[in-house]
């Protein structure tokens, strides 16, 4: 009776998982029946979670990982070491245990030919894997991120490794000050990340392609990018900037100074919105941390800053002037549309800053300035046209008034004549 109840509970849980609830593990298994029924917070939750696990959907059973006899009704028989029972694997055993299947191309092909099988080898190159190999068990293994019994596909938004949740998952350990101090690592990385443009893109704009921890550090082979490879990592998304940086004098200079490419100016986890003032000698300056005032580098930065500021100001003024005319009822939509090309030139000029060649930036800003000034001239022309219309109107109204006066005079004459 107890078994029937436990089975019904398991079925109920599976049904509650939704219309697409997974099929029950193939073959009769007494593991879940017993473990669900046990009133033990260590034992029953895994059994309850397993029917929704991606492995259960693929037909695997408890015995696939834990060994033993899933058909035996007696605990001793089920947990018989002679039948391969290995119980709960230790952290050190987990990567190999998962790798038994996930590193076996022939085996994985049976489930999904597209699935990668290099996770274990990647893991061994990771900071986590290397530490584990040295006997440090307080590091992440497969189950730390994916879970053990309720493993979900990465695309499932409930999965702890889904893009929207992966940063919080990493933060479970990397936000633990005691653990991180023991490993000589910072524990404020997540807090910094939440202030970044990447987090903003992910959470406010819902952009699932926005970078999360594993986008830069790798997932199974997670490790900090090396100084020389930072530009490559950022360049996977910011390809143009990376290319420009490589063509800039900064590439070799940074390498000589041991400075990482992009993060020297943009930070790593707390990447804010870039501003032109990075090039200035003000509080937000980035250039002055290396280039002394009056040096060639500082002068180059100042010129680029001035050029960008000028284009930004001219475009803004042109837009304001045109908007003012549009609000006064004048037709300027075509010129306003053209002004978008000045914005594009500004964007291009800002990108060209990564080349650190003021002449290139000036070429881009000059193009934009011409468009912005054409816009301003158009706004001035339209303002003149508006004034002309007003004058024309008052002149016309004057003439109309004279004509009406003449008509009224004529009407009065007629009225007098007709009595």
């Amino acid at each position, binding site marked *: 009776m107890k078994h029937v109840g436990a089975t019904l509970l398991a079925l109920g849980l599976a049904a509650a998982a939704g219309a697409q609830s997974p099929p029950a593990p193939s073959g009769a298994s007494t593991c879940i029946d017993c473990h669900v029924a046990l009133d033990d917070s260590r034992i029953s939750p895994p059994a309850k979670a397993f029917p929704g696990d991606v492995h259960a959907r693929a037909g695997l059973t408890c015995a696939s990982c834990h060994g033993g006899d899933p058909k035996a009704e007696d605990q001793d028989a089920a947990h018989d070491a002679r039948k391969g029972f290995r119980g709960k694997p230790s952290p050190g055993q987990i990567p190999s245990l998962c790798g038994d299947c996930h590193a076996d191309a022939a085996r994985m092909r049976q489930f999904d030919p597209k699935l990668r099988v290099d996770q274990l080898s990647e893991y061994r190159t990771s900071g986590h894997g290397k530490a584990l190999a040295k006997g440090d068990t307080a590091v992440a293994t497969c189950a730390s991120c994916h879970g053990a019994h309720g493993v979900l596909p990465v695309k499932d938004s409930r999965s702890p490794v889904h893009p929207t949740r992966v940063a919080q998952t990493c933060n479970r350990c990397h936000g633990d000050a005691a653990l991180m101090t023991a490993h000589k690592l910072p524990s404020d990385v997540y807090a910094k990340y939440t202030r970044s443009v990447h987090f903003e893109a992910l959470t406010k704009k819902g952009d699932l392609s926005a970078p999360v921890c594993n986008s830069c550090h790798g997932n199974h082979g997670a490790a900090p990018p090396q100084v020389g490879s930072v530009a490559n990592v950022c360049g996977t998304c910011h390809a143009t900037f990376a290319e420009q940086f490589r063509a800039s004098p900064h590439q070799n200079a940074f390498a000589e100074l041991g400075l990482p490419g992009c993060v020297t100016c943009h930070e790593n986890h707390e990447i804010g919105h870039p501003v032109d003032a990075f090039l200035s000698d003000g509080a937000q300056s980035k250039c002055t941390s290396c280039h002394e005032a009056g040096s060639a580098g500082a002068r180059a930065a100042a010129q680029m800053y001035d050029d960008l500021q000028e284009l930004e100001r001219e475009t803004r003024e042109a837009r304001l002037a045109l908007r003012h005319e549009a609000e006064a*009822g*004048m037709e300027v939509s075509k010129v306003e549309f053209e002004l978008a090309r000045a914005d594009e030139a500004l964007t291009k000029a800002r990108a060209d800053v990564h080349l650190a060649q003021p002449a290139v930036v000036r070429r881009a800003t000059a193009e934009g300035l011409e468009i912005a000034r054409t816009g301003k001239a158009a706004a001035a022309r339209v303002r003149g046209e508006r004034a002309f219309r007003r004058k024309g*109107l008052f002149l*016309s*109204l004057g003439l*109309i008034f004279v004509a*009406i006066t003449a008509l009224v005079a004529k*009407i009065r004459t*007629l009225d007098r004549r*007709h009595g």
Partner: protein
Amino acid sequence: MSEATGSSSAESERRPAPHASVLDWARDRIGWEDFAHLATKKTVPIHRYTVFYYLGGMALFLFLVQVVTGILLLLYYRPSASEAFESVQYVMAEVPFGWLIRSIHSWGANLFVAVVFLHLISTFFLKAYRAPREMTWISGAILLFLTMGFGFSGYLLPWNTLSYFATKVGTDVPAQIPGIGPLLSRILRGGSDVTGATLSRFYGIHVAILPAVTTLVLGVHLFLVQKQGMSVPLLVEKKNGRSMPFVPDFLLRDMVGWLTAVGLLAALSAFFPWELGRKADPFSPAPAGIRPEWYFLWMFQGLKYLPAEIAGVPGETLGVFFFGALALVFLAVPLLDRKSSAGRASPWWNRLAIVAILGAALLTVLAFRPPPGAHR
């Protein structure tokens, strides 16, 4: 030879003398004395409601303004989904005084509709539709429908976002008629949706079909007005009224009104040039606050208040039938109001009209309220 000379001299006597003025020459061929006689014979009654007579002339003047400015716009307008907006943009920004012509056309259209409404309202309350002027009223009512048709078809022509989506809503309305409704909507649109085909169709309706029909109906209307003379309201009919000659006394007064209208249109165009908006994008979602021109708003708002279903019939279908019935009653007022035709007062008709006008005005005001959640 002498005979030939004699015949030639007789012919030269019949021909106008060489020194006769060009006007005399033309008069002999056209004979406009008949028209001049008609004009001098026409008189306008003088009483305390005479001012309402000017509304008819004002409507006619504004119609002519629409014709002239419309023809000028035709020189640049291109009736296709890919070029319509750009051609109007070109008229507004590049063509010398194009902005003035388009703004006068747009403001004039609204003023024209307003004057036509006022003309009909005054005609109604002064009972000018009573026998024998039933046909004048009916032709006038048809002219009002045609005017609204001009407004509806012209609204789409700039092919901007507001006009596009308002036309989508407007052309959905006939689809509510059971049976032929969907077909009617399809015919109006030239397809299942508002597309470039609808634009060319509306263009044809606006610049060819409606002007042709309007000219015909307007001709009948003016002929009847001329034939039957100005109606004198019941209230002043029995008094021995004075009158003034139409030419030049009334015409000069008319001209004062027309010149004032020109001044008003010029001022509106200079200070508030008619907005062009953004080009229609059929793939973008409809912006908030989509609504038709103000003279359709009362119907638009009325349809909104109807429940989805009334006694098993879709609410909008009933609404369309109601407005259709209202139009028929409006058209047949002279035939239904027997008391006025018999020369007696018809206060119930007046009360009904006041309720209808106030109701339409209230619905119009309600429709102008910003949609819930809109930024103010």
